[in-house]
């Protein structure tokens, strides 16, 4: 599908805003968007959310014959796919430039830097080795696919466990997960990609460009580093002219960002490990908030209202009523006369004065019974599979309940997910701003 062209006024506005060091979503020049890492029930399955960009990585393994020129090493196979569901511009089955670029970058970042000990993947030299396969799928494209893909890939590799193998003489037995615990891969270091976007002939640079910023950028510089300050790969693309100092400056910024992200990944892995050990909940079904079409859950972003005002009020709404933890509204049944579809949407054609004047039974749903639930953020954190880095994260959950609260309580008995948000808008207190280096 053809993508919507970028109009001149949007381009000028974005460039002007960048000149004044302001980004559309309120971030600073060196800030990342919120990164959320979630692991699935299977080992090696990981979803990374970088702002709205969402990437899924799945690691799997099988026994194969090794390459002829490297008989004692295992094989690492990486593949990235741009699914058409990620963006209307991706077409199924066609190998576009972006796909080649991302794939090669990922390969160089992970394979050439030798982050995995491939010698340990050898089972029988010259005959059988493990082939580790990492498949990365892009689920939603909102800018900066490279970073999200690299985080997902390395987190998946760290999370993955391969079956244990026993060798007796010539016989090789692969033990299933019930017989022996699966063995983690031996990972030397975790390379993470950091993307820098250059604008206006290289005068301005931004970290973690969003989709709109990517459209107006001159070019991109991707630096892959690990937390030991070793550069694993550098790639400049897009036809920009760089100066040596710019590259060195970027590498310094990258080292800071990489250490933060590595900590985040380690925390997420730790939380997942704890949850599995203690028999707590883990996996996507438990950790991803259930989203329903009848209500809206949106992240609010704070934007500085006045220039240079440090404590500028954010454009956000505070919680009004105290929280009711653990209650989930019924997903199906509503009182008759209440609108099920488009409930959260207000009427469009000038009926607003009507709404405030009359109180028709049908409209009562909107005014009355507006309950705002706040989910215990601590509760989520203690589960911990979802670890969030955020500068300011606001999530809104509003429950639109019909007058009958009784109905609710009877219906939600079957719900077993206390923290799924459902048809609820919840508010979170704004988190403390992360200090920018």
């Amino acid at each position, binding site marked *: 599908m053809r993508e919507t062209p970028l109009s001149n*006024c949007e381009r000028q506005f974005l460039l002007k805003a960048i000149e004044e060091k302001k980004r559309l979503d309120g971030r600073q020049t060196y800030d990342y968007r919120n990164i959320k890492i979630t692991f699935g029930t299977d080992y090696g399955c990981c979803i990374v959310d970088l702002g709205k960009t969402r990437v899924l990585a799945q690691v799997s393994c099988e026994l194969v014959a090794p390459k002829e020129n490297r008989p004692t090493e295992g094989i690492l196979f990486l593949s990235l796919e741009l699914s058409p569901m990620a963006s209307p511009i991706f077409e199924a089955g066609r190998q576009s430039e972006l796909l080649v670029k991302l794939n090669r970058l990922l390969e160089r970042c992970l394979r050439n830097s030798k982050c995995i000990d491939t010698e340990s993947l050898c089972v029988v030299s010259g005959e059988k080795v493990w082939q580790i396969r990492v498949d990365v799928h892009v689920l939603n494209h909102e800018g900066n696919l490279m970073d999200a893909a690299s985080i997902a890939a390395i987190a998946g590799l760290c999370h993955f466990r391969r079956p244990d193998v026993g060798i007796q003489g010539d016989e090789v037995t692969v033990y299933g997960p019930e017989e022996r615990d699966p063995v983690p891969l031996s990972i030397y270091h975790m390379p993470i990609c950091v993307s820098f976007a250059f604008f206006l002939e290289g005068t301005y640079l931004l970290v973690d460009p969003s989709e709109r910023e990517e459209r107006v950028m001159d070019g991109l510089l991707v630096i892959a580093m690990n937390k030991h300050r070793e550069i694993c790969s550098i790639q400049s693309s897009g036809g920009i002219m760089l100066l040596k100092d710019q590259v060195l400056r970027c590498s310094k910024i990258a080292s800071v960002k990489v250490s933060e992200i590595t900590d985040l990944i380690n925390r997420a892995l730790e939380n997942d490990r704890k949850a599995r050990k203690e028999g707590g909940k883990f996996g996507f079904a438990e950790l991803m908030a259930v989203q329903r079409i009848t209500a809206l859950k949106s992240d609010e972003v704070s934007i500085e209202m006045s220039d240079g005002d440090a404590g500028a*009020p954010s454009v956000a709404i505070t919680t009004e009523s105290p929280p009711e933890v653990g209650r989930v509204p019924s997903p199906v049944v509503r009182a008759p006369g209440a609108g099920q579809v*488009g409930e959260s949407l207000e*009427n469009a054609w000038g009926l607003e004065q009507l709404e*405030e004047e009359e109180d028709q039974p049908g409209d009562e749903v909107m005014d009355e019974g507006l309950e705002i639930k706040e989910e215990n953020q601590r509760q989520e954190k203690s589960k911990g599979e979802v670890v969030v880095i955020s500068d300011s994260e606001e999530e809104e959950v509003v429950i639109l309940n019909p007058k009958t609260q009784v109905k609710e309580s009877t219906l939600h008995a079957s719900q077993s997910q206390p923290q799924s948000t459902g048809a609820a808008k919840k508010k979170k207190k704004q988190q403390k701003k992360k200090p920018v280096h």
Partner: protein
Amino acid sequence: MSDCLKEKVGEVLLPGDIFSFENTSEKVICGPGLRRNGDEVLVCKSGILRHKHPNMYWVDSQQKRYVPVKGESVIGIVTAKSGDVFKVDVGGSELASLSYLAFEGATKRNRPNVQVGDLVYGQFLIANKDMEPELVCIDSCGRANGMGVFGAGGLLIKVSLGLVRRLLAQQSALVKELEQVFPFEMVVGLNGRVWVKAQSMQRVQVLASLLESCENMTPQQRHALFRRAANGAS
């Protein structure tokens, strides 16, 4: 007949619901989503039935993708110039065509100053399923009437179709409240595109985020939000 329609106001209707007329003396104006079929009124879009005095009814549906309709004013982005015609992207399934001569004061010698990537505000002259849609930037008398090329400065944002209809409603409380926050300029296209411009870059960003977030808020939440924005701006 209008009684049974009146009963259903605020209820969810699905395509295929039929309301039949008993006495034909009452006049009922069918808005979008309702279609007359002889003596009956058919629902052809799913949504909530709305009503406006004295006898206007329509179905409020949530839709993101715009389908060109004759007579609607939209914001388009110029993608190409070919021959005598501009190709304009309006967010529909096809590019609309806009002739050089469809601007105020344009003649064969005096061509309008339109570049690729500019924004134009125009009306659909032709928009049906069988033909390529055609835009014009003049009205039937030949006057521009606010249409034409624009967009130096400012920002273009994409919102849902429901929100633009609310913005364009006659006594829109939304627009009135927005005015209280700070002065701004706004062009609203029925294809879900809104262009805003204010005194400073920051105000534009604030406006854009206000518009995007007030789609799914109740009036009280919106009041609170706008009040905070206004306090911050002053």
